[in-house]
């Protein structure tokens, strides 16, 4: 019964944070446009490169035709946007400014405000990105095999991907408790993400051993897997496997978050506050 009230109050908190973030974001229209442009630009570059390579290699690279690449990167753009966080920069800033102290004074775990803020920012930019996806679709003629069951599995896969990525990046953001030089730390993560999540190239194009590495690590399950699922490139068994890996990594990261958070709070020296 108590938990029910807690969940209800948590829901109210999320709703209020949503309103707050929304109100703040609409004040910064220029930066919204810029942000959207950069969210579109990166996958667009890969799209152009790979379709060019594909056309120059006799029409396809591995199991991807030019149309296949176009479909891949358009969906990747949307999935990446859905799972993306900027929380690592946020925490570095907060520790330096001392505003983290205020989060610590509140009787609610700061991760909730962060999740709510992340989601509501994306709600604002979603229409812009869907528009961009439409335009890219018209320009590049994507092709994919759409399976109803795969589309149905896509939604839970996307939610799991979001949660997994958020928790992992939030845990990494807590490095700000120990060092003021979080950026250097982040770079390693970003490079790994770039190669092993399916952003640089679809993972199916990698050599076997690298694919195995990508299977074991969490990065593919944060971005690449939902994309492959939506495009009908995975069989039912692989889909189930993937969802299982997502769940496993999610469980692991929950434990990690709790562990690091507890330590971080102990070590917090309120520098700058």
């Amino acid at each position, binding site marked *: 019964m108590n938990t029910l009230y807690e969940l209800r*109050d948590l829901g*109210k908190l999320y709703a209020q944070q949503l*309103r707050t973030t929304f*109100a703040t974001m609409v004040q910064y229209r220029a930066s919204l446009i810029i942000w959207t442009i950069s969210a579109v630009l990166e996958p667009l570059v890969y799209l152009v490169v790979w379709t060019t390579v594909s056309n120059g290699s006799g029409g396809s690279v591995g199991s991807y035709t030019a149309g296949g690449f176009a479909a891949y990167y358009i969906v990747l753009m949307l999935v990446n946007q859905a799972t993306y966080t900027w929380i690592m920069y946020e925490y570095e800033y907060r520790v330096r400014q001392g*505003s983290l102290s*205020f989060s*610590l004074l*509140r009787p*609610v775990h700061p991760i909730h405000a962060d999740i709510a803020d992340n989601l509501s920012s994306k709600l604002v930019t979603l229409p812009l990105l869907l528009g961009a996806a439409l335009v890219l679709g018209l320009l590049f003629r994507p092709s994919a095999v759409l399976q109803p069951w795969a589309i149905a599995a896509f939604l839970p896969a996307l939610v799991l991907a979001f949660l997994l990525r958020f928790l992992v990046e939030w845990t990494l953001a807590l490095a700000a408790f120990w060092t003021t030089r979080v950026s250097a730390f982040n770079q390693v993560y970003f490079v790994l993400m770039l190669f092993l999540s399916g952003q640089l190239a679809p993972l199916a194009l990698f050599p076997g051993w690298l694919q195995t590495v990508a299977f074991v690590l969490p990065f593919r399950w944060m971005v690449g897997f939902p994309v492959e699922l939506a495009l009908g490139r995975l069989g039912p068994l692989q889909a189930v496997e993937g969802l299982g890996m997502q769940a496993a990594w999610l469980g692991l990261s929950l434990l990690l978050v709790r562990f690091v958070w507890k330590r971080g709070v102990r070590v917090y020296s*309120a520098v700058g506050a």
Partner: protein
Amino acid sequence: MPAPAIHLEHLSKTYLVPEREAGAGAALRSLFHRRMQAVNAVADLSFDLAPGEIVGFLGPNGAGKTTSLKMLAGLLHPSGGECRVLGHVPWAREREFLRQITLVMGQRNQLVWDIPAADSFELNRAIYRLAPADYRRTLDELTGLLELGPLLRKPVRNLSLGERMKCEIAAALLHRPQVVFLDEPTIGLDVTMQRRIRAFLEEYNRRSGATILLTSHYMADVEALCKRVVVIHHGRLLFDGNLSDLLQKFSATKTIVVQLEDCVADLHQFGEVVDCEDGRFTLRIPKADTAHVTERLLTSLPVIDLLVEDPPIDEVIDRVFNLAPDVDGSSPEEHG
């Protein structure tokens, strides 16, 4: 005897701070060997606050006031000692504890910058899970006491410093905390605003019975609000008692202001001449000699006006702060 609202016992906090001299050579050396300096920010601090007390927490810059407040609020883990606030261990950060305290830091904003203060208040309402009726009532009361009316709908970034501070204080008190920590709440505010906030704090304490621990560099704050002061210096407790006792103990002098025709007369035989302007002499004399010197002044000079005063409180505090040599030896700096 009710349990103390705040209880500290031998509380201490030591920071490890990397230290290095200026210059490129030193910077390079620090890559290989980092010298750490232990800074005893707080050492062996003990005192109790009864529920409903307003206590001033005084000390020069670097004395350990903010560090102590942060430990009491649960933001920092101490290096040693014990502490209980409302029966809880602060750094355990239990929800029940966090719901009953608040920390207001002067010149620091918890309010969201780009939206009206009222919206930030709503966020706090959701965070602290306040019932709508209670929230309304508290908000109305705070709006009345702090005169917030026209301010609530403006984005926080459009408010002046004083207006922002009023909203910050209101935001911090929405959940009617039983213990209020204030870290220099009036810093940077104009005289009128300072007085308003002082009056508000007094009224708030009277109405709610909240325990208030306040640090401030403005003696006017302390004079107006705090019967009791705790003085901390180099991280150690220097004095704990009534403000008037502090002044008695650390001021051995009285000030006599004598108004004569002009500044020509030589008053050095009566006492230390601090200043003279337009015939208005300011003398400093040992307290014990007050009656004697006053009589002599009145009988031997054409006195137009005479006033006997305690030394300005700032002067006394200044003397207190400049006392007590480094007991530790490990404190790296005096002030600042």
